[in-house]
């Protein structure tokens, strides 16, 4: 975005074009810094262990690291766990946030402003701060080491409620009125008018949520302790712990493998995602 915006501007003077070149170089530098570790990981994953610290353009490629990684830990199970976790969280978030946002956007009730302020307050609290307190709650609920425990703290997402409320507020009141005259009830209006009209927001929010929970490590690490619940991130962490001996090429292969579905998904639907983000106003 920045780049295209810059090139669109007419160049007026030598000084300006100099600064533009500096900016451009800065952009490339930052981009390179960002992408270098990824390149390094890809390099390591596809080469034998002896090329870890030796760069040779014609080093033989191998898929051995992937096979080793796959066999070294129950990654199939971890994939399933992550998939279940993400599905449960996303589904609950959509349901809970949609209903809450609808109430905040279109209903008048006592204490509405205060309740909404409380929701916004939640936006400003780092989840890590509540780690211990959340753990105690989960213990009391008796759900430690379950998918529910991993998902519960995130289901009523303040961000989701806020985002959807803003989206619902932009739906013309006239459409709501028309649907009411046509005989639709409150839930019917929500599902037939508000939700379809906010689809880009759902896509954008879904993407943020999926990538966040796909990568989330700390909380699942705290509340899980068995193979049958551990998501990929925790599994990878366990796998990479020093007591097994650090084999960077295998770890790289495993890391690449676990992030591949997200990466491929994003590349495939890149255009739709970017459009959704533009329309949702998140950048």
């Amino acid at each position: 975005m920045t780049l295209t915006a810059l090139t669109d501007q007419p160049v007026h003077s030598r000084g300006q074009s100099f600064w533009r070149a500096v900016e451009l170089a800065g952009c490339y530098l930052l981009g390179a810094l960002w992408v270098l570790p990824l390149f390094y990981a890809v390099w390591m994953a596809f080469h034998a262990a002896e090329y870890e610290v030796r760069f040779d353009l014609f080093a033989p490629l191998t898929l051995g690291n992937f096979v080793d990684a796959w066999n070294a830990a129950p990654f199939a199970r971890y994939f399933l766990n992550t998939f279940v976790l993400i599905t449960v969280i996303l589904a609950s978030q959509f349901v809970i946030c949609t209903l809450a946002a609808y109430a905040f956007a279109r209903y008048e009730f006592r204490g509405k402003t205060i309740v909404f302020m409380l929701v916004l307050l939640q936006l400003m609290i780092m989840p890590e701060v509540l780690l211990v307190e959340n753990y105690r709650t989960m213990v009391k609920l008796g759900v430690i080491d379950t998918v529910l425990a991993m998902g519960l703290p995130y289901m009523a997402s303040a961000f989701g409620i806020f985002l959807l409320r803003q989206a619902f507020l932009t739906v013309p009141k006239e459409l709501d009125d028309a649907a009411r005259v046509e005989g639709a009830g409150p839930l019917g209006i929500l599902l037939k008018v508000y939700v379809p009209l906010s689809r880009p927001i759902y896509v954008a929010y879904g993407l943020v949520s999926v990538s966040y929970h796909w990568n989330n490590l700390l909380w699942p690490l705290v509340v899980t302790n068995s193979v049958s619940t551990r998501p990929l991130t925790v599994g990878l962490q366990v796998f990479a712990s020093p007591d097994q001996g650090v084999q960077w090429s295998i770890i790289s292969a495993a890391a690449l493998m676990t992030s591949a579905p997200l990466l491929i998904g994003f590349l495939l639907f890149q255009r739709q995602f970017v459009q959704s983000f533009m329309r949702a106003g998140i950048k």
Partner: protein
Amino acid sequence: MSGIEIKNLHKRWATFDAVRDVSFTVAPGTLTVLLGPSGCGKSTTLRLIAGLDAATSGQILIGGRDVTTAPPARRGLAMVFQNYALFPHLSVAENILFGLKVRRVPAAERTRRLRKAADILGLGALLERKPSQLSGGQQQRVALGRAIVAEAPICLMDEPLSNLDAQLRHEMRKEIRSIQQSLNMTMVYVTHDQIEAMSLADQVILMRGGSIEQKAAPVDLYLKPATSFAARFIGTPPMNLIALANGKGGAIVKGSQGPALVEGSGDGLLLGLRPEEIRIEREGIVPATIRSIEYHGADSILECAVGDQLLLVRVEGIRRHTVGDTVRLGWLPEAMHIFDEAQSQRVERKVLVRQAEPALRVAT
């Protein structure tokens, strides 16, 4: 078929009375227009009838049934909104059938009604399009289609034509009237456009500041305005309202030398005369000076001074008048409307102006 009866309807928004003590009835199968300047409470009244807002007090009966607290869906009505309120994510056909699907009307019946509405409105070729792919006039038709397929006895419309250009507005106006009559709908139609009101309505309800100023058939509204506001609101250019004063033998135009136009005192009274009813005649009633001339094509509007009052006169084509000419203005006795300036109410006074026909003049 059902009519509508509104009794002492009142709507208060926080500290502001948007609708005050409004009562009227709409006979089954007729079209009533709620007319008035912007902000006078027309839309609020319509939304109360629809059930989209709750009345503060008063009663609404539809088909003899008290629906004051019933939800919109239970009132047996369809509504067309100012901005059409089409669902942007649905096709034209889905938009039209939205309500029927919600009400679980069988598919065969839905198809029949869709075809009928599409025929009436000429929408056949557009059914698969999205609203954003339609022109304003076509969107308006889809909104009408949705009201038609509901086959509700009552149809409410809130300024349905205000977003269309003049040409299209005229066509749609005729179309709405013919649909209303052929389907025998009971219709309440909101507009701020007096020409639309006059050409459509069986009954016009003129509102101002939340209350009813006058309810009458269009003809009566034009011929016998109940207040000076009603007099000014109907007609283009609006009716002249000139101040009267006490004079010899009756009330005279303020600042003039007479003659007496109505019996009794003139102070505090207004004389209403429509520009199109005033003629320039050699034997006219009052002398006047032409102040300006505005040429409109088929007619011209002259601004004339009588005494210290100004009034507009509509004459056909361009006459041989020039600014500064002194002429005499005449009119028929029935063309005179007298209003109390303070109360703005119409008052009946004996008119002293006689028919200015030469034959009569010779006989006397």
